[in-house]
């Protein structure tokens, strides 16, 4: 059979972002794949050296539009450590609340994209319909549906009243059964399973070799979660499970993400009910004393790392961002071997690609 080369991307309905794949097919069978990144490279790390620490909060918010809050959280954490600032507990709790809301939003979004890629538009619509509740909560809290601009160096700039808290709790109550319905469908629906089971299998050994993080790693049996293993303040007082599955295929990744979503709803409830009183932020100096710091946090897609070096001015000397997508991308050539052309979409969306994160 003759070989043909199929380009996927930079403009392809499968990808919301430009990423180019060149697949060599034999019939419907993928035998080789080559990846090309860099279409979304905006030079954020370079730009951040020319801007002040305050401006950089908003720059790093735009590393990725889906997990924008966790990027600023990690960045602010790092700068606060350099400054030696003690963020008030209420600020930390509110930060964590938005992190968890963002996780729900990101995972529901991902479920929708995955379902759309396998031609299951109904689940796409239902997942995104339920996601709107989270977006409403976030918009009421922060004033933005997708970019929240909540974090400032030294805390958060939002606060919430008791009435507002009760409203959010009620919204979460309507959200939870809907998420559980989706979880139930993912677990039992036959055509969904037919398309995702045994696709893109990654073994635990491969996971360790490629340093894969996040739900992809947890779906292959690697029990790690930064929120539990190296907890930053609010998380050390909260109780939650870390869902782990051992199949390592696209279906297990779906399950892990959906179970995490349910966990995140519980976390949001805990945060809201145990919210401490007090101020939400402290004033930060504009100039940061010289030093360097590594700041980590668990993003919806896995561990995100910020390395910040300061030379004493009001602009960072170097910021290095390592996003989870970049490490997870490396597994794609392995996963794309010996599969059908139709499964490429499942594999690509299975690792929850965020090219904007990877390219920066």
């Amino acid at each position, binding site marked *: 059979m003759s070989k043909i080369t199929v380009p996927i991307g930079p403009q392809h309905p499968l990808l919301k972002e430009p990423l180019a794949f060149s697949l060599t097919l034999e019939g419907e069978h993928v035998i080789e794949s080559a990846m090309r990144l860099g279409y979304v490279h905006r030079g954020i790390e370079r730009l951040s050296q020319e801007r002040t620490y305050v401006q950089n909060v908003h720059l790093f918010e735009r590393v990725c539009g889906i997990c924008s809050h966790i990027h600023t959280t990690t960045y602010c954490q790092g700068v606060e450590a350099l400054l030696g600032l003690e963020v008030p507990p209420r600020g930390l709790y509110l930060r964590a609340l938005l992190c968890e809301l963002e996780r729900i939003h990101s995972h529901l979004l991902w479920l929708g994209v995955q379902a*759309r890629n396998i*031609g299951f*538009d109904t689940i796409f619509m239902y997942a995104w319909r339920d996601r709107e509740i989270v977006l409403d909560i976030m918009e009421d809290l922060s004033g933005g549906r997708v970019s929240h601009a909540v974090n400032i160096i030294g805390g958060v700039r939002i606060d919430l009243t008791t009435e507002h808290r009760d409203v959010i709790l009620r919204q979460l109550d309507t959200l939870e059964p809907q998420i559980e319905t989706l979880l139930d469908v993912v677990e039992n629906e036959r*055509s969904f399973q037919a398309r995702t089971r045994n696709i893109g299998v990654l073994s635990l050994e491969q996971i360790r070799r490629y340093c894969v993080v996040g739900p992809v790693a947890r779906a292959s049996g690697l029990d790690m979660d930064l929120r539990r293993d190296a907890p930053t303040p609010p998380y050390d007082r909260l109780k939650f499970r870390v869902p782990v599955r051992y199949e390592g295929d696209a279906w297990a990744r779906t399950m892990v993400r959906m179970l995490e979503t349910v966990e995140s709803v519980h976390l949001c409830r805990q945060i809201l009910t145990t919210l401490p009183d007090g101020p939400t932020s402290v004033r930060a100096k504009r100039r940061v004393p010289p030093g360097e710091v590594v700041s980590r946090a668990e993003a919806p897609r896995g561990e995100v790392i910020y390395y910040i070096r300061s030379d004493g001015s009001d602009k960072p000397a170097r910021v290095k961002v390592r996003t989870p997508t970049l490490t997870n991308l490396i597994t794609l050539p392995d996963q794309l071997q010996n599969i059908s052309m139709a499964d490429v979409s499942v594999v690509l969306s299975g690792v929850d690609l965020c090219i904007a994160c990877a390219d920066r």
Partner: protein
Amino acid sequence: MLLKLLIFPGFLFLFLCALFFDWVDRRMLARFQGRVGPPWYQPVADLIKLLAKEDILPTGVNPLTAAVLPMVSLAAVLTAGLYIPFGAFSTASFEGDLIVVLFLLSIPALAYFLAGWISTGVYSVLGGSRALLQYFSYEVPFLMALAGPAILAGSWSITHIVDYQSQTIWIALMQPLGFVLAIIGLIGKLKRDPLDIPKAKSEVVAGSLTEFSGRKLALWHLTMNMQTVVGIFLLVNLFMGQSSVFGPIPAFLSFGLKSVGILLLLSTASALYARLRIDQLATLGWRVLAPLALVQILVATWIGG
């Protein structure tokens, strides 16, 4: 006769039905998904807009073939539509017209494959070859399922099969298995969700039609919609025939209602399932549907004979 051919139940009527069915389908799907859906004039607007758009052909494509293919398939579907009685109205009917209709209805699938094959784009070629593979998977069970009513009625004329049902009950009730198989086959034939493998957006962009634009795309869309109408009318005639107790006007109405009913069934199916992979469809077609259809035919022969 010319009036019959052009207006009712001929071209114009089929055309209006195609637009109406397209709208009902999209609207129902939207409602299932908790959306509003398009307004009633949407298919008309889409069609006019596409007709008025620039018609680009990529280099390397034979312009004549590209222009002829959608016309041939549209003509085939229209001709097939002429032989299918609508309620009590039929334009032409003769012994063996069911076979002619089935033959004519398979032409669009082959034209679709050719349209992909002549295009220079990779996605078109992929979509075309997928269309051919899909054709081989659904066509055999579909034909065998449609043979059930013919064997039962002892005639290959659609009118006779309808008449046979007016004396007894719907064949769908006598052969429920055959009816389900025919519906699955029809979904495959129309390339609808969940068997829209040749034009799966996330895999092959738009299949064979990726490189077509403007008028040709409009013709292709029209062909697909007409095919939906003709296919549904065919199934209604074969499986849910008209009882002659009522006068001609209720026949007209009940036929329309039954057609819309089958359309809703198709919409539900597309909301209910994820798209199958092409190898899964082939497995389904040859390992499940074809044997079942065979059993169905054997039973029908045993009863009918």
